[in-house]
């Protein structure tokens, strides 16, 4: 189908453009461009770095999303690393030194030495003392010596241990840590005293027994 109108327009195409914009319009466009450039200078800088990864059409929205996601990941990572290092450092410091803590439960270990840092040292010292006393005690064959008293000592030590745990828990809540610490140290000292006393008793008994064993020997010789 022949369109005479279309042909006519095509032939005279140029003559149809009769209007012209105001000459000032370019100046207005220029100012607008400058304003927009100034506004975009800062975000543009960031956008340029990332635009390598994304298609150019996606540029702007992708950049914003990317920055948000990246910021979130960085934050989460920082939190994770901080928590991890704290967890790593604390048990490392406490586990090797603390043997008493086995009695008091493991959950509280983490922060108790932050409340009272000197406690670790104190515990190490006294635990080693107590342990050596216990070893000395175990050298005596208590049954042969006819001593049922040991049970009572065990009970006494258990009582001391539970009060020690109680004191340790108080450390979290009491503002006056010095007083509690003093009580705890006293508690440990009492244990050593108890053990010392027991040792003394045992030594005395042993001395008497030795006398006993030598005396019947004498008797035998005399009777024969």
């Amino acid at each position, binding site marked *: *189908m022949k369109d005479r*109108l279309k042909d006519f327009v095509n032939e005279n195409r140029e003559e149809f453009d009769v209007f012209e*914009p105001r000459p000032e319009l370019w100046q207005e466009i220029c100012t607008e461009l400058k304003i927009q450039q100034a506004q975009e200078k800062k975000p543009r800088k960031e956008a340029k770095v990332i635009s390598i990864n994304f298609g150019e059409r996606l540029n702007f929205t992708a950049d914003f999303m990317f920055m948000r996601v990246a910021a979130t990941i960085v934050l989460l990572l920082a939190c994770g690393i901080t928590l991890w290092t704290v967890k790593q450092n604390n048990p490392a410091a406490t586990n090797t030194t603390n043997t008493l803590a086995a009695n008091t439960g493991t959950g509280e270990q983490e922060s108790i030495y932050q409340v009272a840092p000197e406690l670790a040292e104190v515990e190490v010292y006294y635990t080693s003392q107590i342990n050596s006393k216990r070893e000395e005690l175990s050298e005596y064959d208590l049954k042969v010596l006819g001593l049922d008293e040991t049970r009572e000592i065990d009970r006494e030590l258990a009582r001391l241990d539970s009060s020690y745990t109680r004191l340790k828990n108080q450390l979290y809540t009491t503002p006056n840590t010095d007083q509690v610490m003093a009580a705890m140290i006293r508690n440990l000292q009492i244990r050593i005293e108890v053990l010392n006393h027991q040792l003394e008793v045992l030594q005395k008994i042993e001395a008497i027994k030795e006398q006993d064993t030598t005396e019947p020997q004498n008797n035998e010789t005399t009777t024969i």
Partner: protein
Amino acid sequence: MEKGTFQDVNAQVVERCKAGDNRAQYELYKLYSKAMFNVSMRITNDYAESEDVLQEAFISAFKNLHSYKAEASFGSWLKRIVINASVNAVRKRRSELVPLEDRLAEDVPEEEYDDNTEWQVEQVRRAIQRLPDGYRVVLSLYLLEGLDHAEIGEVLEISESTSKSQYSRARKKLLEIMKDTHSMA
């Protein structure tokens, strides 16, 4: 032939524009502002609105120059921006560009006013200006901006056949207007 050399010159200017060269931007503006202004004038039929469109289109073109691939000439790329901006401007003041009753694609009987009267450019141009918005836009896009009906359908969000029938009606109306003014004259 002339077009080929033109594009080469443009490519250089466009590159300088990408670097933010203000003089290069002015060169492109000088080259295209008049044609683009008339494109917008035919669609919006409003001088102030066309200036707004032109300003908006050039700014958006300079800003998004990185997305312009040299597959089409800079002129046709810019023209697309102007056409879209103009159509949006018309849409803003008028919700429906092509009235719903006109969207039904039906054949408009072809009445050729083949009276061989000599047309004057000015007469045709003024007649186009007097067409209602919906007719004027489709007719201008087809006759003067060289879009085919598929492209017009895309721009106006109507079907290709609607664009065709709309053009037939617009063309008929235009010839009527011209006949009237001719007989009046």
